[in-house]
């Protein structure tokens, strides 16, 4: 699905990601942890193709195609999707209208999906305007379910979400990643940033990675990494040279 090789990324001529290598196979879900400012969101946004992130060397291959320099929307069209931690508010643009524009042949499913995510009341509201933390995430998941990407990047799906919403979002996210499908039939892949690991209660992740100061420090079992971080913090990872 996704293969990142020797990737170096700069923002305003300052290198922020160094020598990133990551392979995600079809049907796999990976989790990325790391302290604030370590470059997790930068990596997601670079994969997605946002402006302001310059790939100085290395490449991103998606389903066999080098997408390193493809524009954002071309990557979306090829099956990449992203859940934002803090999406922008778009005054005047109704959520329902946005879904209509992006849905294409899936438009007929919008009402049912909106109802499932308890977002039917929000279709007439401006995108993200005055939404609470949980509402933003429900709106994001709804947009992704309508967009139906094959590779989903989730930037802290549980942040700012109250306990009532967490299971709704967790289960919907699991659906995005086809967790209801048998592992053999599962084709959708994901890369998830999490601080708390709550999302792991809903999504069985296959691999975990720790990113510190723009460098992958650790790869392994996501539960074990989470447990270690919870006990010892990231200091051990930062000091760890075992790569």
């Amino acid at each position, binding site marked *: 699905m996704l293969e990142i090789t020797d990737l170096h990324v700069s923002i305003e001529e300052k290198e922020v990601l160094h020598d990133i290598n990551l392979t995600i196979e079809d049907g796999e879900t990976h989790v990325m942890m790391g302290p604030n400012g370590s470059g997790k969101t930068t990596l997601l946004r670079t994969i997605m193709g946002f*402006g302001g992130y310059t790939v100085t060397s290395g490449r991103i291959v998606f389903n066999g195609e080098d997408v390193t320099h493809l524009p954002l*929307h071309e990557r979306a069209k090829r099956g990449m999707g992203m859940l934002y931690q803090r999406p922008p508010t*778009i*005054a005047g*643009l109704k959520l329902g*209208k946005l879904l209509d524009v992006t849905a294409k042949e899936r438009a007929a499913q919008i009402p049912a999906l909106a109802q499932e995510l308890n977002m039917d009341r929000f279709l007439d509201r401006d995108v993200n305007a005055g939404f609470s933390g949980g509402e933003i995430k429900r709106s994001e998941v709804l947009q992704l379910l309508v967009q139906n990407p094959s590779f989903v990047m989730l930037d802290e799906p549980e942040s700012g979400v109250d306990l009532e919403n967490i299971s709704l979002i967790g289960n919907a996210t699991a659906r995005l990643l086809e967790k209801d499908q048998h592992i053999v039939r599962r084709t959708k892949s994901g890369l998830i940033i999490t601080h708390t690991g709550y999302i792991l209660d809903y999504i069985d992740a296959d691999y975990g990675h720790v990113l510190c100061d723009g460098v992958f420090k650790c790869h392994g079992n996501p539960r074990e990494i989470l447990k270690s971080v919870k006990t010892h913090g990231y200091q051990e990872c930062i000091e760890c040279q075992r790569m």
Partner: protein
Amino acid sequence: MPANVEELKDLSAEDRGRLELAGLDVAETERSGSFFQIDQEIRHAHSGTEGIEVLPIAEALEKYDWLKDYFWRAVPKDKDRFTQFVAKQETQQGFAIIARKGARAIYPLQACLYLAGAKVQYVHNIVIAEEGAELHLISGCVSGAQTKAGAHIGVTEFYVGKNARVTSTMIHNWSESISVYPRSASIIEEGGVFLSNYVCMQPVRHIDMYPTANLIGENAVARFSSVVVAPPGSTLDLGSRAILAAPNTSAEIVSRMITRGGTIISRGEIRGQVPRTKGHIECRGLILEDGLIHAIPEIAGLVVDTELSHEAAVGRIARDEIEYLMSRGLDEETATATIIRGFLDVKIRGLPEMLQRQIDAAIDSAEAGF
């Protein structure tokens, strides 16, 4: 303009298209009355609704002696050189719409003021809604596809009686070389509601207007909404004013402006003259290409217990908004157009669905230009 044009449907296909862009129903099937004036010639005036009359203004003044008391009452004759120009004309043109007590029109009434070849088209219109009456007026002011220069001066006086409801939706479709000077004002009595909507998505040389709503009866409400685009060469000097002169009256002025190189001056004024009054001005501008958007919202409170506010913002489309939509699979152009269309989307409370659709269609018609 050929003399045999009696009805809207007699116009050329191109001109009918221009009328439709201005919200006019050429077949007149979904209209409860209609008025059609070409240059200074009234081609027809009729109403299909009981209790509502649509008459040429001169005929109405002859028929109803009392009407002269409304003539130049809301708009002062000496207001400026444009009103003076209209006042000194020997024959008055324009329409009188009179909705009798309790009369209600299901469909909107439409007025088409068509500038074909005259150097100056001038009209003086009066709209009266008596107690409890309801009427919705849609006026399309249009110049012919072949009309290259001219000026339109329109005086319109609205009288909204006790608990009456009047909406006035004006869609302009002029051309690059035409100057337009609407001069309108309304007087709203107790419990009356007046909504004024203005859309101008097409080029025009110059528009200058500053309609005033005088809320003189308790619980009267006035709301102004405007959506305008200024291409290069267009100067739109637009304002709306509300005078809150009775307790519990309220007013709202909402505008959305886009410049693609032209000049927009967006004025607004609400005066709270008595206690228990409320007003809000909201103007938002988007600069797509260098031009000018000059927002001048004014609020004046004269007494304790009047609550007035305004907000104005001018800017560009944020890059992160465009990228947000691009990450959902829209190309840059579609993402930008989708955001602009959203920006212009003003849903007007209390406006019949049919008229909202007309406004939406007028806005959509310009969308391709972005």
